[in-house]
């Protein structure tokens, strides 16, 4: 049944259909046609908690506001709206369908905020218990920036109350990890382990994976594999790599803190390490202990390669996790717009609002820090140890960015996934706490989109050097959405130990087999293979065969030995650069310097040096398979428009956007491949089929910039005409002047 009501909000100016049927009548007709059971196609292990109907969902079709009737359900996985309208069966819409949730489904963990609409007021809902009146409208803001308006006005009162309470309870109230859908889902689905991800992803859950990695980068460190039962520390992964001089005794001292964990080795032999820092600054009995321990660790880092070491306490120069959260909460609000009016009102001060949120600036800071680290490794060939309190937030951001800039392997789809496995999943990033999917009150403080910040930074890099990345922008957007789909083990736990202990607990009540949560890298869980084609960047320039020969770095090692001072530490020639600190003397001295440097160290000097490094790099010919440095000048950092603007109809370019070229390129690539295939076949036989090429040549003109996430629905597209005050007031005498003052002159 299809019914349309007059504009449900926003701008009532456009005369639309007027309903002459009262709500009661609608209810009756609804009953009469004995509403057939409306169920979504439930996933394995999915259970419906409650449902209500008829519920009105207001949608914007090509800028016109209209409403759709349907049923609202809440299951243990999602809030789902089942439209009474026939689903759009457009081929294009099906093309990029997510198998777990559709366009009218909101995974419970994807809900960001819920607002209640009381008549014309909007109130943030924090609990399911409402004193007086239940809201007649529910507005759901999602973490993937979709916005849903549901009206409960026509549902039966107790139904409305039930669904409202149900949704609020399941989306916002604290819950235990076991209630997350992944657990019911994992029980009911059997994953075939063999069906591993298409691009091979290294999971880093075996010692072989680590051994392979250190071999690949020609690192010279030792693999620790006796943490398989987490006996060394629950904070560390089962397998990890440390400098060879770290002893077994060192490992067990401070519960994993202070141990330099190897991340990646540069071809010159120097390497990047990260660690959770010990509270060195405290003046208590244990601090002396910490200091001497740290000194030993730095020695170990240095002696491995007889290089100088630079340490960098990331919390000194980068925003805190709280800053990141605060900035992002401000930033995302710009994209959760109720109506057209809001869109144009916020357009006037768009740039200063963006700047005010600081989000782009935080991305810039992270990229700049990564460039600094790259500079140390590439130019000065020093070992770098980055640290922060837990060693699993900004350490992960910076170390992964550094590796992405250096290593073309990580810019392939499989390599990128392996990198996330290595640095984030095994590196113990606290995904569960940072996402706070459980809505625990005591974890609210630790909620922060750190992983998203990393993806944003990757997007900026990819934007600047598209041919260097095998994965597409769409891939990054989908990955950022997947964080909030509570099905994947990847983002469900705080550490490998956390995951292992939960899995073990699950196993105890005599189960047949261990629970198998899919990892996010098994993309077939979400998308069929045709949709997965969108993950590939058609601009990617594959390394040609002759390039593949390993680059020999002609940096003679003995030279280093010659210049070594008797102490393990080498004086770095560029002492002027105080940002990453040289370990030139005892730790005590270092600490003093560090304290001073907080005040003395003008970040400008480091900036100038980094800029010089960038300019020197820029002078060399660009190699998409070599080192990549991002340009960080103001105009080059941009808004990730696909992620943030895809659901806003006013911001969609019909028939335009970068998708028009990307699609054309993808088509062309496929065509070349077809022809090549034909050529191979033709060599032996006469058949030739032109059809594939013809069928593919579907025009990109019918797409919009939000493709593949949204499709323009109707053929008659209306442009978005700005409304409201267009000008921020120009108070200028010039505005009153006449165009032509001296008409005589020709």
């Amino acid at each position, binding site marked *: 049944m299809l019914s349309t009501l007059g504009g449900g909000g926003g701008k009532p100016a456009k005369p639309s259909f007027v309903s002459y049927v009262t709500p009661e009548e609608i209810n009756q007709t609804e009953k009469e046609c004995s509403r057939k059971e409306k169920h979504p196609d439930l996933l394995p292990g999915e259970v419906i908690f409650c449902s209500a109907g008829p519920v009105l969902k207001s949608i914007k079709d090509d800028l016109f506001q209209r409403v759709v009737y349907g049923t609202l359900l809440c299951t243990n996985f999602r809030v789902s709206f089942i439209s009474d309208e026939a689903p759009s069966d457009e081929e294009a819409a099906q093309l990029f369908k997510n198998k777990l949730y559709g366009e009218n489904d909101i995974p419970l963990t994807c809900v960001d905020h819920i607002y209640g609409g009381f008549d014309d007021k909007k109130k943030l809902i924090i609990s399911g218990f409402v004193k007086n009146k239940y809201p007649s409208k529910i507005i759901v803001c999602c973490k993937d920036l979709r916005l849903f308006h549901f009206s409960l006005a026509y549902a039966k009162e107790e139904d409305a109350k039930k669904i409202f309470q149900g949704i609020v309870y399941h989306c916002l109230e604290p819950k235990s990890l076991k209630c997350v859908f992944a657990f019911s889902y994992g029980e009911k689905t059997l994953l075939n382990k063999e069906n591993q991800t298409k691009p091979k992803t290294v999971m880093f859950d075996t010692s072989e994976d680590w051994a392979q990695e250190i071999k690949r980068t020609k690192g010279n460190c030792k693999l620790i594999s006796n943490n398989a039962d987490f006996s060394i520390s629950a904070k560390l992964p089962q397998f990890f790599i440390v400098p060879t001089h770290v002893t077994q005794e060192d490992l067990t001292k401070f519960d994993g803190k202070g141990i330099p964990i190897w991340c990646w080795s540069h071809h010159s032999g120097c390497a990047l390490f990260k660690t959770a820092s010990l509270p060195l600054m405290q003046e208590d009995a244990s601090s002396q202990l910490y200091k001497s321990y740290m000194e030993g660790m730095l020695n170990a880092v240095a002696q491995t390669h007889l290089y100088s070491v630079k340490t960098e306490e990331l919390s000194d120069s980068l925003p805190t996790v709280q800053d990141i959260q605060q900035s992002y909460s401000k930033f995302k609000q710009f994209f959760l717009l109720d109506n057209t009016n809001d869109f144009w009102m916020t357009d006037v001060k768009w740039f200063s609002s963006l*700047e005010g949120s600081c989000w782009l600036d935080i991305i810039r800071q992270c990229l700049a820090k990564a460039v600094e680290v790259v500079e140390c490794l590439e130019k000065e060939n020093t070992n770098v140890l980055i640290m922060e309190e837990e060693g699993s937030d900004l350490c992960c951001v910076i170390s992964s960015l550094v590796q992405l800039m250096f290593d073309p392997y990580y810019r392939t789809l499989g390599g990128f996934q392996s990198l996330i496995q290595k640095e984030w999943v095994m590196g113990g990033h606290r995904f569960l706490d940072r996402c706070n999917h459980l809505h625990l009150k005591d974890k609210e403080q630790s909620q922060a989109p750190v992983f998203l910040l990393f993806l944003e930074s990757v997007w900026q890099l990819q934007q600047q050097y598209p041919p260097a990345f095998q994965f597409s922008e769409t891939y990054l957007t989908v990955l950022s959405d997947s964080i909030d789909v509570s099905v994947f083990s990847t983002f469900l736990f705080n550490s490998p130990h956390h995951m292992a202990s939960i899995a073990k607990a699950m196993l105890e009540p005599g189960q047949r087999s261990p629970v198998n949560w899919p990892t996010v890298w098994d993309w077939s869980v979400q998308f069929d293979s045709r949709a997965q084609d969108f993950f590939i960047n058609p601009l990617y320039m594959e390394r040609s065969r002759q390039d593949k020969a390993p680059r020999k770095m002609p940096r003679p090692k003995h030279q280093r030995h010659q210049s070594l001072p008797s102490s393990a530490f080498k004086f770095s020639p560029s002492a002027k650069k105080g940002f990453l600190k040289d370990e030139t003397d005892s730790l005590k001295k270092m600490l003093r310097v560090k304290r001073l440097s907080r005040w003395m160290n003008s970040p400008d000097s480091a900036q100038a040096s980094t800029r010089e490094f960038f300019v020197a790099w820029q002078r060399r010919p660009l190699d998409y398979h070599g080192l990549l440095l991002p340009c960080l000048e103001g105009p080059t950092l941009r808004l990730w428009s696909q992620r943030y603007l895809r659901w806003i109809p006013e911001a969609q*370019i019909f*028939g335009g956007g970068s998708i028009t070229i990307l699609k054309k390129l993808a088509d062309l690539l496929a065509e070349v491949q077809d022809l090549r295939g034909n050529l191979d076949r033709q060599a032996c036989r006469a058949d030739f089929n032109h059809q594939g090429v013809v069928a593919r040549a579907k025009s990109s003109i019918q797409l919009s910039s939000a493709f593949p996430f949204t499709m323009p629905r109707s053929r008659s597209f209306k442009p978005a005409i700005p409304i409201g005050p267009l000008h921020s007031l120009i108070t200028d005498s010039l505005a009153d002047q006449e165009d032509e003052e001296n008409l005589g002159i020709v």
Partner: protein
Amino acid sequence: MEKSGSADSLGSKRSSSRQPSVDSLTSTNTTRSDRSAHLRSAVSPDAASARTDLGAEVLKESSRIAEGELQLLPRESVQDTASDVTYICPFLGAIRGSLTVTNYRLFFKCLDKDPAFVLDLPVGVISRVEKIGAISAQGEVSFGLVCKDIRNLRFAHRYQEGSLKKSIFELVNKFAFPVSNALRMFAFEYGQPFPENGWKVYDPLAEYKRQGLPNESWRITKANEHYDVCETYPATLVVPANIPDEELKRVAAFRAKGRIPVLSWIHPETQATVTRCSQPMVGVNGKRSKEDEKHLQAIMDANAQSHKLFIFDARPPVNAAANKMKGGGFESEDAYQNAELVFLDIHNIHVMRESLRKLKEVVYPNIEESHWLSNLESTHWLEHIKLILAGALRIADKVESGKTSVVVHCSDGWDRTAQLSSLAMLMLDGFYRTLRGFQVLVEKEWLSFGHRFQLRIGHGDRNHTDADRSPVFLQFIDCVWQMTRQFPAAFEFNEFFLITILDHLYSCLFGTFLCNSEQQRLEEDLPKRTVSLWSYINSQHEEFTNPLYVDYANHVLYPVVSMRHLELWVGYYIRWNPRMRPQEPLHQHYRELLAKRAELQRKVEELQREVAGRAAVAPPEKAGSPAGSPVQTCV
């Protein structure tokens, strides 16, 4: 053929500049000198076109360009050379070298650096030469050159006191401002022949014929053949069929500067039209003109699809009202029945000039990183761009979706009106998005309809504070660029084409943008005495074409005019900053793919032929059997 030092497409040019890897501190100027070379090459079509004709010899020529040799154009002559001049580069610091001034260009080179540093610009881009400060302790004087293309150059050189020799910058002053110094512009000297004559690109009758004109409702009139109806209008006009020529004169009396409502574009299906004019001379007393009212009624009646007419007044309502004091104003809806008046809030030329001045401050030479976005916002530049695009969008929407005819005007109908009508036509008609179609658009809506280029740019005029100068045409090109960003496959031309147009807007090498009107151009005999920019461009059009172009045919483009999609044109406004790495040339990759496809297609055909030949000799075993044909799956 590989071009080394000359006009390749913007992107690929820059990437090739990266090829020589020099690890010295000085080589930062690869980019810079390269860009100067690039500008130069854009400016020296002789080298480029000769190359297409003469192959090998030209290779030598272009390699000499790379070495930093001055390549003179036909009838370009060196006026003076001063050695020991210091160019104070805001990015690289002081560079010592020699400075040469010709009757066309300023050429600075420093060969001590590796690769050589070259700065090569037409003196036409200079808007102001000023001496900065007094003679320094080292006996040096500083000169600042303010340029129209968003950069300032600063030089210092030793000043020989008492010597009779004049400073070389006095020569710059002389040749940069030929109009003020009663000299001929270089465009009149330059006589490079090109295989195509660009002055023939636009033939009004052919263009109107393309649009299906004349038809039963619209006629082509020669009433303005002698420019006596309106001296700033072209000779050929399209007016409603039932308005006789003698009435046009009476309408002209009621429109500012006699700029009567005439047709710019007609919708091929609905017959809805875009017409343009100047403001009506309503004045404080609300004067009316029967003929003007009849004229607009006729415009409306010519479109059977709609019984309404939209009048878009580009100005803010306050300014439109203020014009009544000077005899102008706007149409009252009482006098013009069935007409609806809409104001588009676009500001005047002075506001635009000031906005560009602020923008230059923000982007040149250095960008303040932390406040970039708010600084950009404070210039209002993109806000003006947004308003112009929004205006054009509303016009295009009314014509396309509303099937309603529109009348566009501002005060005089040659600045904002030209912006709006041409942008609306660009959205509505795919022809104007081709390389040649765009030339027709510029020739028609801007040049023939009397946008006062001479006055707005101030070609060769020393008076840099002239209030008549304004970046109106630059704004139009910026708007076009914004559209190409949003629809990267819908335009046949590329970014380099737009930049080349802007470079030659100032260079005074070509006659295209000289003078203020068609009448003046004919008086000056420009088509005979000067070369058209389009001659140069069309002689090597592959440099300017977008390989990603898909013919959108009749598809109407509606750009999104929100700040979320508008961006500053880095490739133009910030191109002098070597740290701003331009977007990598995807086009290059695309060209490779196209070549690969062509090659594979050829191979397939070859093999097919071969197989067919073989089949003719011996019957094929299973050829053509359905089981054998590979089924393609499509993406």
